[in-house]
């Protein structure tokens, strides 16, 4: 079964995903459960299409988690992260502490030696970042109170993995099973160093990421952006993530944590949305493969052999974590619905447990038969999470009656500006400044990397990227925005964008720049209601000032411009569509122009001067003459 090579494996994984995920989504179960079920189906205990190599695939696919953390970091600016320090330390710290203590206590009660019990407690206190965040994001619940709190706890757990890796070997009482071979964490560069040297190298690595992200990565990306080779930019993005993951592994830190940090550092850079759009599909696929591998790793033979004891472990694990989380939610004054969301989403074992259990076994802290049962229990609890959240959503929440989906106004993770501006040159720049002056924040996309640099120096939040890319628009929040301003120079590109944006984001109201009449015609034909000829208003203002300079009353000149604008816009609408037939267009245009001018002149002559008949007393005077 396992010799068919890479293509067969890829085919099996992709086919399973393509079949199971849409089905699961149809049934309202969410994609994560779909992947897990697909994994169980093709795993050694299902169709047997994949076997032991599922474990290797899982290690590889864990890279999806690394990418996910990078993307989360990208959306989390340092200031926001700092604002979340309370929940991260408070809720996260309390959760790990209480869960570890309780689980260790139960373990000791169930017959484990104290050091084994502590190891199990520590490892099982962790939840699954991948499953929780993916599920929350899919349901659109990340930005709720409960979702944010869950994220804070997960972040703390990711950090807590590092000291756990340090503590676990200390818990070993027997001789280490294979002290020479460290498995996952073996063979790093820092192994030979003394403790202070290891600490120093960790610190150096973190500093390198922060400083590199600030001062090195941006000029490099700017240089790459200059080539305008989209695939090289993608390659650079992947290179960055993989490089940081490697560096982190070398100093013994969690790669997910390192890339998360890099993401946060880059969250304020102009390449944020472009990077998001580039990494996103890789993350999605790798996470999918990871979930399939988790599904495939569920050891049904072991479960079938000891259904009672494993069932008891799973039940206890979920129950204990649920209780601890509910208590924390209560302590931090979450609303009841948010507390339930928070607690049900985090009540499982995490993917780190697989790593840590094998590490603990190698270190001789736990024996293999214990870890096998616990690993099975963790896998089941992870698979059960989407079901538990579904249970909460469909059965518990409706009884509460109070469903606050988006309780926080400040978006901590996602960019949700109501306005997106494509092109920040002469036109977009002014519109952007005007909106900012009125307290409207806009997400700005600009394709000229030199220009972006200058604008950034001026303190403007401008992102580098080709606004005609759907994925980039999505990363810029096009699904939630209300208005999109197309202010780029390139008319052909605008026409192309208009079409795709209207198909992909029907929620967006489009305000589109046109350089002159011909471009305006094309846009009107396309059905765009809001078309702006960039020189029209300015020219009209010059005309008004010229009239005034000639002695016309200011208000009359103002009214004349208003009238001219109205007539001209009407003729623009009337002539749109005729520009394709040159002769017909020229005839019609001349007629319109003559009509416009004669109407305005007539306005002037007929009623004396000006055309605002409400202010004209001539007819009144005649009327008065008729009165007796």
């Amino acid at each position, binding site marked *: 079964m396992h010799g068919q090579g890479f293509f067969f494996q890829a085919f099996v994984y992709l086919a399973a995903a393509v079949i199971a995920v849409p089905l699961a989504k149809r049934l309202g179960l969410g994609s994560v459960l779909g992947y897990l079920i697909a994994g169980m189906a093709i795993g050694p205990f299902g169709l047997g299409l994949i076997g032991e190599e599922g474990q290797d695939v899982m290690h590889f696919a864990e890279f999806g988690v690394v990418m996910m953390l990078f993307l989360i970091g990208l959306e989390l600016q340092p200031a926001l992260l700092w604002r979340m320090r309370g929940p991260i330390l408070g809720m996260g710290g309390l959760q790990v502490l209480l869960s570890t203590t309780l689980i260790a206590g139960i373990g000791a009660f169930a017959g484990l030696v104290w050091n084994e019990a502590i190891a199990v407690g520590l490892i099982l206190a962790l939840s699954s970042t991948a499953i929780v965040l993916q599920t929350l994001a899919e349901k659109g619940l990340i930005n709720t109170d409960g979702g944010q709190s869950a994220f804070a706890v997960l972040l703390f757990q990711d950090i807590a993995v590092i000291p756990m890796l340090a503590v676990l070997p200390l818990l070993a009482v027997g001789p280490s099973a294979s002290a020479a071979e460290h498995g996952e964490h073996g063979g790093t560069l820092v192994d030979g160093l003394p403790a202070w040297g290891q600490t120093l190298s960790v610190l150096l690595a973190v500093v390198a990421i922060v400083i590199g992200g600030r001062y090195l990565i941006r000029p490099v990306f700017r240089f790459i952006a200059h080539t305008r080779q989209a695939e090289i930019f993608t390659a650079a993005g992947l290179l960055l993530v993989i490089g940081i993951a490697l560096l982190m592994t070398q100093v013994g830190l969690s790669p997910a944590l390192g890339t998360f940090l890099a993401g946060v550092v880059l969250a304020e850079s102009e390449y944020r949305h472009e990077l998001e759009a580039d990494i996103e599909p890789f993350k999605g696929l790798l996470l999918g493969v990871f979930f399939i591998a988790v599904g495939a790793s569920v050891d049904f033979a072991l479960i079938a052999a000891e259904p009672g004891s494993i069932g008891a472990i799973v039940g206890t694990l979920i129950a204990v974590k649920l209780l601890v989380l509910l208590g924390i939610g209560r302590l931090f004054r979450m609303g009841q619905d948010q507390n339930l969301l928070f607690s049900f989403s985090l009540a499982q074992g995490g993917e780190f447990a697989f790593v840590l259990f094998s590490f603990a076994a190698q270190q001789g802290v736990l024996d293999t038969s214990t870890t096998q049962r616990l690993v099975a229990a963790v896998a089941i609890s992870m698979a059960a999470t989407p079901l538990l959240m579904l249970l909460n959503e469909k059965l518990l929440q409706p009884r509460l009656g109070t469903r606050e989906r988006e309780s926080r106004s400040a978006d901590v993770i996602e960019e949700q500006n109501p306005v997106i501006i494509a092109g920040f040159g002469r036109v977009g720049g002014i519109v952007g400044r005007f909106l900012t002056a009125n307290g409207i924040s806009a997400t700005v996309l600009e394709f000229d990397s030199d220009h972006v640099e200058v604008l950034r120096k001026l303190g403007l939040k401008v992102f580098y990227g080709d606004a005609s890319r759907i994925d980039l628009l999505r990363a810029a929040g096009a699904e939630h925005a209300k208005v999109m301003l197309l202010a780029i120079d390139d008319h052909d590109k605008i026409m192309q964008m208009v079409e795709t944006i209207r198909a992909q984001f029907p929620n967006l109201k489009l305000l589109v720049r046109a350089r002159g009449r011909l471009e305006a015609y094309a846009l009107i034909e396309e059905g765009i209601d809001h078309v702006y000829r960039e020189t029209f208003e300015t020219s009209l203002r010059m005309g008004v000032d010229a009239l005034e300079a000639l002695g016309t*009353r200011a208000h009359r000149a103002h009214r004349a411009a208003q009238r001219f604008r109205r007539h001209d816009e009407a003729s623009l609408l009337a002539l749109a569509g005729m520009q394709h037939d040159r002769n017909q267009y020229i005839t019609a245009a001349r007629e319109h122009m003559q009509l416009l001018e004669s109407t305005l002149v007539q306005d002037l002559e007929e009623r004396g001067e*000006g055309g605002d008949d409400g202010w004209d*007393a001539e007819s009144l*005077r005649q009327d*008065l003459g008729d009165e007796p």
Partner: protein
Amino acid sequence: MFAPGPWPAVPLMSDVPFDAASPPPQRVLVLFAHPALEKSRVNRVLIEGVDAIDGVTFHDLYEAYPDFDVDVEREQALLLEHDIIVLQHPFYWYSTPALVKQWEDLVLEHGWAYGHAGHALHGKRLMSAITTGGSRSAYQEGGHNRYPIAELLRPIEQTARLCGMRYLPPFIVYGTLAMTPEQARAHASDYRALLSALTHGQLEPGAED
């Protein structure tokens, strides 16, 4: 309370006794509002030479704010620099032209012009100077417009009161629709004389009549 009707002829500047006992000079601000002066027959004549009178500032609102973008700070400063405000405009639909309403809404701020802390205009005087198409007889009970001008000007009078200003009897030019250029020039001469008298502190020249 005040005499509706055009101002009676007032003494010319040279006739006014000017001794140590005479009241201090008053600064007069004419706020003029006409949206289509090019069509005007009477107001155009009325404003001729007004800005040449000593102590009178002539301020053409529609020329200053053709797009209704009233500069509140500038307007408030102007009000503070003057003692008597004259609101000159044609009487449109028993009220002011639209820009005057905009001016009132924006310039007479709460806390500045009225309200607990709003004392900026206290003690100043406000006077309407208006032209009407209809004759004096149309502005009375049983007439075409059913009310005397004084009644129709109540909103402006009360606006002045609320701002702590004294509302002076209005200067009214009736019957502009049927007016000859000579008549208009006569009214203009009355108007200039009145403005000049106001600058000399003769606040209610009509009352002396």
